[in-house]
């Protein structure tokens, strides 16, 4: 029991990692887009738990708020909006076998590379937990330019979304009148 409590963090890390992997595997196997979306949501929440265990609580909060709260809700909304049910036909493309072979090869190479390359822990490293104040000071002092570029990117995205909507409206009008 004592041993369990001392290694609780590592055990939870293992558990969350395993659950995230299972969620990711379900994304490949499940057929309905809504179930795939729910599997992705669970994977993201478990990743948020891992971030929390690592000590970067603000990234865990962002993960849940932005990814689960914004991106995936948007995705689920679109799945419900489209409501294209396609239970017939093959689930996988013709690239199934080459895809799986490539997946196994890539994973094998990467795992072997990690096994050899990552240096053994040198004591102090590994518990570099820092709060949001350290992050915020560093973010707005050293990376202010990137922060401003982010706003430029968001403006560009808004303009592009408007352009897409305009194209769709023009296509609608053409379809109705001609």
């Amino acid at each position, binding site marked *: 029991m004592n041993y369990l409590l001392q290694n609780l963090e*590592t055990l939870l*890390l293992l558990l969350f*990692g395993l659950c995230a*992997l299972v969620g*990711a*595997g379900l*994304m*490949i196997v499940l057929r309905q*887009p809504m179930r*795939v*979306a729910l599997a*992705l949501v669970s994977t*993201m929440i478990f*990743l948020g738990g*891992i971030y929390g265990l*690592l000590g*970067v609580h603000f*990234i865990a909060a*962002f*993960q849940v708020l*932005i*990814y689960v709260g914004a*991106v995936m809700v*948007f*995705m689920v909304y679109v799945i419900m*909006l*489209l409501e*294209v049910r*396609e239970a017939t*036909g093959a689930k*996988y*493309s013709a690239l199934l076998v080459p*895809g*799986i072979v*490539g*997946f196994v090869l*890539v*994973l094998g190479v*990467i*795992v072997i590379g*990690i*096994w050899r390359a*990552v240096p053994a*822990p040198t004591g102090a*490293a*590994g518990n*570099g937990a*820092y709060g949001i104040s*350290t*992050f915020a000071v*560093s*973010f707005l002092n050293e990376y202010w330019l990137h922060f401003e570029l982010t706003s430029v990117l*968001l403006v560009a*995205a808004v303009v*592009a*979304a408007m352009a*897409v909507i305009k*194209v*769709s409206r023009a*296509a609608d009008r053409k379809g109705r009148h001609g």
Partner: protein
Amino acid sequence: MDRTQLLIGLAMALFSIGLLGVIVRRNVLVMLMCMELMLNGVNLSLVTFAQQTATTVGAVLVFLIFVVATAEIALAIPIVLLLVRGKRTLKLDAYNDLKG
């Protein structure tokens, strides 16, 4: 196998599964979600490295990736909506004419 190796291995496994999904699945929305899974794997590796070196660079990069992912999905979804409105299907094979 220490914690860093475990987390980097998990990140790379998530990335590879996402890549496999993009290659193997035929549904456009599912492929988009698999791309999100790849982004999540990269985020996990960045956070792990930031933790290992005790710097804020990785966290800043993760923050920027959040913004880029949100902008990407906000643009990708209208494009998918437009495609589906034209062909009434989510299957990728129907959009062969996009290759020009």
